[in-house]
């Protein structure tokens, strides 16, 4: 922490984020208006019109909240099945030079649910499971679509807040198509080319076999003709045989095009198993910086969109300010913990000044790993450039807590804003209770129905996280997946369900959710948790949007609670932290908190 250069990098990041927020926000205002004008119109408008014509979409015809929800659900279902079947039968499809087999039903379900819900949890190792066709079609399509749908939902909610006595909240198809065509594709294209310049691959060649400079010998378990491991006389220990390694198989494929949208759309599902820690996925500190920026760019711009749409720019910036305060706090705590390192390892002779480098890459170092971990979990991105499982207990608690707040600290594209607006309404409600009058939000009375919807979202999500964690913790299948024991093992389970419900997708990745014995419990429960986390959040939010849109405006009075300025920011931050803390503190105490003290005492498991 006493390295001035790291502070300078942090300042640059914040500066860059501020710099993109307004221009991108202004652009979003045009993109999310079917009649909006952008400088891409000459190129994109004809494609957009053609799409509408082929699909029979009338962009000017707005939908009420039920119509919007039905369209969103059916689109998600159709595209989920599309991905499921491609993954199941990838061996019969083109672009499979490594001849990977089709995926098992539960792995295909988990992956399809994962990508449809913008979670992008990876139960599989990309480079050893997925054909180029699966990567490029089955997975990448959701990187675009789930991001576009998220932004569309956020726009619908903002319209609901901004309008009065209105029946409709926009056209789902127009929103989705326009966000994809005008925002996601053009930015991804430029970003992908930049990433290639840094070293990310983009080709369709089979994997390259390199003849390495120094052949060496490793010991691997001996297998019989059927591929079963041969056991020693005691029937337990596997027999080991020497194997000479004189080649290295180098992964190839269309990676850059996928990585660009993976970051920009806060998807996070990597091409390779190690995600953005893999030198091909994130080759330089510069690519790392822009990947971090691309995670927060759209969520940050959406707060500007909110401010403009409700004709109260200061409200937009107040929401931004609350997110920013939580982001800085998380970064500092995580950075401090990782820089301090692990006293157990330092006693063995590891340099204390180097911090905790286990699971981190040298080109990023401590600061950029801690910053990335905070950003990726503040947002619902879930890409990782270091292994969270190997973070110190407090360093790992930060990402975990970030996810458990509901990923509202900038958050996923769209999802972050609509999640935060849930807390805004809750904060306004609490403020109303404190002064003893009917709460109002931007001139709309917040009534029992609205608060019930808000509570429904919060309760369903936390119950799913805690329920899933409890079930897995006491089950054989749950414990079988663990890579660590003691409190850290519990943290792996808690992280998995938090990540799934939060649609984050990062992991304490030692956990094996797709075990070799084919036990489907982890894949299936996590897949269901992701669907709950996505759709049982979106449906109440669209209902809320519809209800808010239909309300009348009440004129502001002396007693109106102001949703801008420092008081509001503090109240909003307090609401987010308190709801998160009250719900998850007991579980966190059993995991990372107790582990922190055990690490200090030198206890090992």
């Amino acid at each position, binding site marked *: 922490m006493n390295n001035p250069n790291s502070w300078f990098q942090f300042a640059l990041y914040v500066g860059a984020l501020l710099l993109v927020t307004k221009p991108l926000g202004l652009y979003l205002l045009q993109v999310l208006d079917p009649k909006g004008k952008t400088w891409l119109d000459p190129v994109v408008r004809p494609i957009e019109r053609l799409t509408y014509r082929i699909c029979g979409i009338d962009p000017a015809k707005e939908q009420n909240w039920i119509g919007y929800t039905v369209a969103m659900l059916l689109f998600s279902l159709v595209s989920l099945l599309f991905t499921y079947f491609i993954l199941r039968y990838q061996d019969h499809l083109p672009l499979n030079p490594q001849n990977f087999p089709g995926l098992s039903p539960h792995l295909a379900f988990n992956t399809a649910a994962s990508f449809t819900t913008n979670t992008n949890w990876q139960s599989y190792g990309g480079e050893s499971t997925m054909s180029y066709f699966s990567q490029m079609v089955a997975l990448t399509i959701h990187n675009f679509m789930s991001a576009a749908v998220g932004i569309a939902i956020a726009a619908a909610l903002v319209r609901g807040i901004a309008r009065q006595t209105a029946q409709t909240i926009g056209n789902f198809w127009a929103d989705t198509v326009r966000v994809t065509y005008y925002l996601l594709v053009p930015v991804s294209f430029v970003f992908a080319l930049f990433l290639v310049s840094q070293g990310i691959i983009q080709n369709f060649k089979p994997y390259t076999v*390199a003849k390495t400079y120094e052949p060496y010998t490793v010991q691997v378990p001996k297998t019989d003709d059927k591929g079963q491991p041969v056991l020693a006389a005691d029937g337990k220990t596997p027999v080991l045989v020497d194997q000479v390694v004189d080649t290295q198989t180098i992964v190839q494929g269309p990676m850059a095009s996928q990585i660009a949208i993976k970051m920009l759309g806060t998807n996070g599902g990597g091409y390779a198993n190690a995600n953005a820690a893999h030198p091909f996925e994130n080759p330089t500190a510069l690519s790392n910086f822009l990947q971090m920026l691309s995670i927060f760019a759209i969520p940050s711009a959406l707060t500007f969109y909110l401010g403009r749409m409700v004709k109260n720019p200061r409200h937009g910036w107040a929401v931004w300010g609350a997110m920013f305060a939580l982001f800085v706090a998380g970064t500092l705590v995580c950075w401090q913990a990782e820089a301090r390192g692990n006293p157990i390892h330092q006693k063995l002779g590891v340099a204390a000044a180097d911090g905790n480098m286990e699971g981190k890459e040298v080109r990023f170092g401590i600061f950029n790993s801690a910053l990335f971990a905070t950003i990726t979990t503040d947002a619902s991105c879930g890409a990782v450039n270091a292994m969270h499982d190997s973070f110190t207990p407090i360093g790992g608690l930060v990402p975990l807590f970030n996810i458990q707040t509901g990923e509202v600290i900038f958050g996923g594209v769209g999802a972050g804003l609509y999640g935060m607006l849930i807390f805004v309404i809750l904060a306004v409600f609490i403020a109303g209770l404190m002064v003893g009058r009917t709460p109002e939000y931007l001139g709309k009375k917040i009534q029992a129905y609205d608060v019930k919807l808000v509570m429904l979202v919060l309760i369903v999500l936390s119950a799913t996280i805690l329920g899933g964690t409890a079930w897995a913790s006491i089950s054989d299948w749950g414990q079988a997946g663990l890579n660590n024991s003691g409190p850290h093992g519990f943290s792996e389970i808690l992280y998995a369900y938090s990540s799934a419900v939060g649609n984050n997708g990062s992991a304490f990745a030692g956990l094996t959710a797709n075990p070799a014995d084919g036990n489907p419990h982890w894949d299936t429960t996590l897949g269901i948790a992701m669907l709950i986390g996505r759709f049982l959040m979106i449906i109440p939010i669209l209902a809320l949007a519809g209800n808010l849109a239909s309300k009348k405006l009440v004129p502001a009075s002396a007693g109106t609670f102001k949703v801008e300025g420092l008081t509001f920011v503090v109240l909003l931050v307090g609401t987010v932290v308190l709801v998160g803390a009250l719900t998850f503190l007991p579980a966190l105490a059993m995991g990372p908190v107790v582990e922190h003290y055990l690490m200090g005492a030198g206890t090992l498991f």
Partner: protein
Amino acid sequence: MKTILLEIKTSLLVTLIFAVLLCGAYPLAVWAGAQAIFPAQANGSLVSDKDGTVRGSLLLAQNFASDKYFQPRPSAAGTGYDATSSSGTNLGPTSQKLSDSIKAAVAAYRTSNGLAADAVVPADAVTSSGSGLDPHISLTNAGLQAARVAKARGISVAQVQALITQTGRARDWGVFGEPSVNVLQLNLVLDQAYAAK
């Protein structure tokens, strides 16, 4: 019911059009641009001999174990440096297994580099990276290996140090990331300048 059927039809059509545009045209356009402007990077930053044999990628660590070469960080990718199964150890801070492996790595590092039995060892030298393929080591780590490499090649430590300085990479644009040195690149430069004994 009619609306639902209509929306299913729209969903199917939009999915198909997106598949063509986002999963066909978009990656192909990136591919064409990448191959035209940055062909070396787009194909894996490969290192080849004069006869065209591919020997590795500048971005991926491969195993170097002998004294005459700089050694990369420990790797948890497959059986080690397996570029088809990138991975960290994912062992937590209170893991006995991790503690044991770090203990062994510290001892081995001290012995092979002729360090005192209580010498402090750079963290990157004894911990596994996130990918298991981290191509870099810290400058401190490289500096501590210099004497061993110099001795094995019968050259002076200063000559090796000069190559570290020459190969070492500063922060990107002087700001981003951490200074580091690419192990494969350094070893190639070494072989070029001073053939191994």
